[in-house]
């Protein structure tokens, strides 16, 4: 049974679910959408999930939904929940199974014409160098101690092994290493699942794309080192089996502890525990391990991408200008300071399928980008485009500095597979000049453009609402799909 909660229009792109929509809500719901995206959100149970999240102990201001919101499990995908004060809880379900899943964008000094004729070779080289697909092991064989070092030390620990570039660190969230990681809070199983997977793409919606900048919206592009016609590489992956196991372990542990803390929840997948409790602080320490692992994973993938370009163009990656623009995740719970009703508070900001979107005034933003704001990288779907945006002051005021994370699904995976065949999709994309290499054809069909909302509309609504501003649009030239 579907029951759509009542919505009140606050402005063109902001809708509120009032506090009295259901008993147990501690804050109202706040949905960023236009009429069309709202219609899509009402088509599944996402808004009901916004209401459920509004019941979390310690939640501040509002349970928020970004314009790409869709039905998740427990939390909606595209949900933001900040908890603070004495009652504040942390919820592993508010981060998701793929902890620190995120995107990075690597520049090149190449133009479309430099790459077009070599694309077949380039894609073949990338496919040979980048491990992808289910159960595929990484090129680095790490033992337990080395895996522990990555969990504790993130990207710098990978650099110490001779993989990655020192100058990337400044352009990775948290400088490449999340504080507070404690591998003793990570289960043996999570270790086992992570050990072979540093520098692997994975499967599902994870991908690597060679793209070209096809439209520039503002002068901010120059500050970010982007111009029309330039070739860039986007990498979308996460913490692999390690993150999945950390989430599994802690949802279980917290769902069994909730009663002890007197926490009653409308959905068991919202399982949570007070931030300062053993369950809460252990989760944050384990989550930081998975986050560091994810950052190192994307740095490893970048190494293989640089290698693929070197092999194809017979030139060093530095000579090819393959610097990192930014690396940002869209599945995390982070300790951040924000104004709540005019008072500064320390919060745990859960972003599940939502991207941090800070203005240049925040110290977290790398110095070279302070005049334009933090880069927000929005992967679209294979057939259309992706976006580079920047964070804003309005986002700080409206959404604890958060914006969308992608197009957002509009069709279930099984529906997509029924409607679209992988090989047909591949032919269609190739007709449009997009080369595709995929681990499985069924996996390809699941990610068909028709299965997603229109990313142009989603980013336009983000911009209209003030959550983030468009800087550049990127079109795929070649896709490597897990």
């Amino acid at each position, binding site marked *: 049974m579907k029951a759509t909660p009542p919505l009140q229009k606050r402005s063109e792109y902001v809708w509120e679910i009032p506090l009295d929509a259901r008993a147990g809500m501690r804050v109202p719901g706040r949905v960023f959408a236009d009429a069309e995206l709202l219609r899509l959100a009402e088509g*599944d149970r*996402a808004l009901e999930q916004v209401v459920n999240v509004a019941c979390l102990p310690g939640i501040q201001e509002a349970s928020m939904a970004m314009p790409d919101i*869709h*039905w*998740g*499990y*427990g939390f909606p*995908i595209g949900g933001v929940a900040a908890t603070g004060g004495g009652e504040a809880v942390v919820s592993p*379900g508010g981060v*998701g*199974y*793929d902890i620190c899943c995120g995107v990075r964008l690597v520049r090149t000094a190449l133009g479309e014409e430099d790459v077009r004729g070599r694309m077949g070779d380039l894609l073949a080289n990338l496919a040979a160098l980048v491990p992808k*697909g*289910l*159960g595929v092991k990484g090129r680095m064989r790490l033992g337990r101690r080395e895996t522990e070092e990555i969990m504790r030390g993130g990207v710098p620990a990978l650099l110490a092994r001779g993989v990655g570039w020192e100058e990337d660190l400044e352009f990775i969230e948290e400088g490449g290493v999340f504080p507070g990681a404690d591998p003793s809070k990570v289960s043996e*199983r999570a270790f*086992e*699942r992570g050990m072979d997977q540093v520098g692997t793409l*994975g*499967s*599902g919606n994870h991908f690597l794309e060679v793209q070209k900048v096809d439209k520039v919206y503002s002068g901010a592009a120059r500050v970010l080192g982007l111009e029309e016609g330039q070739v860039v590489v986007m990498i979308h992956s996460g913490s692999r*089996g390690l993150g*999945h*196991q950390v*989430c*599994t372990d802690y*949802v*279980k542990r917290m*769902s*069994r502890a909730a009663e002890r803390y007197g926490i009653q929840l409308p*959905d*068991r*997948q919202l*399982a949570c525990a007070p931030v300062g409790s053993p369950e809460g602080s252990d989760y944050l320490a384990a989550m930081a391990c998975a986050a560091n692992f994810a950052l190192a994973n994307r740095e490893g993938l970048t190494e293989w991408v640089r290698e693929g370009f070197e092999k194809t163009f017979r030139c060093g990656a530095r000579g090819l200008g393959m610097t990192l623009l930014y690396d940002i995740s869209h599945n995390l719970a982070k300790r951040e300071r924000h104004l709540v009703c005019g008072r500064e508070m320390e919060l745990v900001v859960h972003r599940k399928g939502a991207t941090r979107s800070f203005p240049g005034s925040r110290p977290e933003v790398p110095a070279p980008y302070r005049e334009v704001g933090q880069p927000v990288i929005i992967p679209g779907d294979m057939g259309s485009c992706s976006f580079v945006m920047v964070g804003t002051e309005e986002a700080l005021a409206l959404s604890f500095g958060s914006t969308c994370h992608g197009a957002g*699904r*509009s*069709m*279930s*995976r*099984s*529906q997509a597979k029924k409607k679209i065949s992988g090989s047909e999709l591949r032919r269609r994309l190739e007709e449009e000049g997009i080369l595709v290499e995929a*681990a*499985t054809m*069924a*996996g390809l069909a*699941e990610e068909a453009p028709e299965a997603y909302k229109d990313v142009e509309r989603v980013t336009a609504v983000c911009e209209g609402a003030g959550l983030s501003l468009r800087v550049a649009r990127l079109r795929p030239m070649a896709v490597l799909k897990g």
Partner: protein
Amino acid sequence: MRVPENGHEQLEHTADAGIRAFGGSLEEMFENAAEGMFRLLADTGALGEGIEVGLEVTAPSLPELLVEWLEELLYLSERRGLVWKKAKVVSLEEGLEEGWSLRGTAWGAPLESSREALRGEIKGVTYHQLEVEKERGGRWGCRVIYDV
């Protein structure tokens, strides 16, 4: 409610994947739930079953036992590099102290020789809308949503 022929069916869910499974007995429902999950992961008809692995799980309640059973199968397939074709419940009982326990066996094939049959990945078994219930007439039914 209509019972699907093979005892399980896929549910439509925008972001994720779900299944409903049924059985004349609890054991049969657990087996069908596993098979439903295996079919999300691979074309099981095209798989071999030469490798046999035993497993044992416990949980304080039946819905949690179902999650444990499915999670254990996922973990073992990832850890051992296998793709499952079928699973059987050897024993399923409620103890006095430790709650529910289940012993089972799963059969499958090595991942490396089964790549053609793969369909997708499951990241986790969720508690969202999790249900195990005995329906009127004695039949068992369940619902599970996965993060894929």
